[in-house]
């Protein structure tokens, strides 16, 4: 709770500090605020929080603390890694950063919610700033288009979510997760109203994590938005969406497992295949990332499918590795800052800039689940937890990993091979901040897998 307040206040302060037209101050404020917030969150792991309210709309479980600090950490990395973008238009720096901070407030709400109020509000607080951020490079036609698409599909899915919530409310008579759970387990609420409601909520959640067939927005939006925002969507929003999904469905709707698991099974398979198949032959970097993120949503949802205990941990690991991989890639694309975002502009980058090349290999192979990168361990844990109940699903996922490696590899080859004309390949000069981000990501990707004790 206190972390929430700190982040919110930081956002507010940022807005005002921005009036000084000194982006650095904004950055420092945001960094300090986020670090404080993360520290406060982590301290809750051991101690009770400083503020305690009567209202119990938010509850920080241990896994919740982990997820929310990870979300804040991702935001932190996005802010410092994307600083070069944010400071471009000095008068907007404060707004950009505070919008991201507000959004991360929503993220924390959406992780720690205990009733559907907070879930819904958190979702909206998470999304609305991002609708704006997607369109934040105003001169860019594609950015506007992306923003429009994201907004309309997002609002539409909000409608669906609310419709589902209403039906669930109608069936159970409550918005409290605990009470809903009790109502379901007592059997007093079973029936079409509840079932359809749950399926509707599932549709909206699938929309947030961009799973088929609710994924269509993501390639367009990822491509159109500024790089930093794409990174935020791919890392934070996906992380939060996954966790909310997990929380709602494995705990609250856990007794309706037989209802949603069958549907989710099919959609996971569909998601993985659509994501991976569409990614083949892409020539735009961020679009590729989007499709790969769709596929990864499919893999991560397997963690939710599995009924083994500890699926939240598996999910955390998975999203951890995935987030860091994506952040690495996004940071590199921010460094490269290529408007066209074509593969061809990445040609030879890795060869000319060994560190960038190393990071590219690391992150792409982590996405492709090549050990020893963290991505492998995430995938391994998720898959092995589901193998007992859904061997076929895991086999599908494995097949998809095989398809997936193909397009990651095309990109690695493009980035690492020697270009025909060496002079055309730019020597990249990442800022210190970007170096920091990349190093953090490298450490996380290389070591994380081994320390899941």
């Amino acid at each position, binding site marked *: 709770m206190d972390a929430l307040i700190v982040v919110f206040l930081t956002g507010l302060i940022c807005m005002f500090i921005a009036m000084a037209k000194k982006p650095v101050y904004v950055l420092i404020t945001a960094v300090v605020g986020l670090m404080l917030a993360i520290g406060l969150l982590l301290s809750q792991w051991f101690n009770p929080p400083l503020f305690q309210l009567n209202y119990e709309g938010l509850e920080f479980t241990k896994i919740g603390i982990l997820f929310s600090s990870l979300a804040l950490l991702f935001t932190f990395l996005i802010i410092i890694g994307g600083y070069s973008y944010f400071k471009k238009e000095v008068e907007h720096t404060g*707004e950009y950063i*505070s919008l991201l901070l507000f959004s991360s407030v929503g993220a924390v709400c959406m992780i720690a919610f205990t009733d559907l109020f*907070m879930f819904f509000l958190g979702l909206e*607080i998470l999304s609305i700033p991002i609708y704006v951020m997607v369109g934040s490079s*105003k001169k860019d036609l594609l950015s506007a288009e992306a923003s429009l698409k994201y907004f309309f599909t997002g609002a539409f899915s909000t409608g669906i979510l609310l419709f589902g919530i209403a039906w669930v409310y109608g*069936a159970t008579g409550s918005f409290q997760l605990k009470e809903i759970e009790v109502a379901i387990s007592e059997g*007093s*609420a079973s029936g079409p109203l509840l079932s*359809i409601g749950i399926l509707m909520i599932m549709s909206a959640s699938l929309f947030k994590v961009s799973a088929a067939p609710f994924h269509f927005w993501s390639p367009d939006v990822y491509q159109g938005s500024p790089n930093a925002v794409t990174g935020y969507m791919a890392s934070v929003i996906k992380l939060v969406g996954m966790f909310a999904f997990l929380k709602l469905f494995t705990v609250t709707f856990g007794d309706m497992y037989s209802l949603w698991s069958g549907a989710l099974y099919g959609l996971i398979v569909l998601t993985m295949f659509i994501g991976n198949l569409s990614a083949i032959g892409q020539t735009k970097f961020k679009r590729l990332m989007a499709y790969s993120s769709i596929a990864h949503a499919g893999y991560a949802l397997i963690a939710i499918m599995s009924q083994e205990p500890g699926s939240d941990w598996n999910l955390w690991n998975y999203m951890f590795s995935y987030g860091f991989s994506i952040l690495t890639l996004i940071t590199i694309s921010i460094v490269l800052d290529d408007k066209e975002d074509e593969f061809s502009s990445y040609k030879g980058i890795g060869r000319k800039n060994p560190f960038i090349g190393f990071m590219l290999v690391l992150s792409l192979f982590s996405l492709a689940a090549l050990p020893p990168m963290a991505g492998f361990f995430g995938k391994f844990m998720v898959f092995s937890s589901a193998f007992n109940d859904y061997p076929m699903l895991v086999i599908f996922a494995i097949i998809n990993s095989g398809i997936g490696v193909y397009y990651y590899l095309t990109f690695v080859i493009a980035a690492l091979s020697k270009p025909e004309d060496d002079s055309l390949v730019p020597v990249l000069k990442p800022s210190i901040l970007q170096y920091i981000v990349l190093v953090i990501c490298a450490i996380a990707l290389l070591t994380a897998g081994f320390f899941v004790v």
Partner: protein
Amino acid sequence: MNLETFAIIMGGLTIGSALMVIISKNPVKSVLFLVLTFFFISGNYILMNAQFIAAVNIIVYAGAIMVLFLFVLMLLNLSKENEPKNSVFVKFAALVAGGILFTVLIAALKDGLVIAAATVDQSDSIGLVENLGQILFTKYVLPFEISSVLFIAAMVGAVLLGKREKQLID
């Protein structure tokens, strides 16, 4: 005229005006029909004894939001019937899809509704300002406070997007 008939008439009117929203070719007419729909929905609220919500609905939706819509319509000079038409096929497909959605939803409900039993005494007072205010500022104060973040974000966003860039002035 008993309540049931009244409710049915009210419902019918709501549906009718809602249909007009999507049928009207002129955007301004659509907006006006939407306002009308909101009024009918407020009527439904009143039927259900939710006076506060009914009032808020009219003030916020019909009063504020729809005015905003109208304002933007006028600002962008979109009041003419110049909206490009979707092809018949798309419309047909959309209608079929909508029809199927409706059908399956109703078909699902036909299996028999099980609704949480109305355990609490259905008192008349729950929809009143006093009662709602009481709950909103005690039990639901946190969402209330949090929604301020939402508004600030929306505000900042609107400003960010709405502000004309210097270079864009032409």
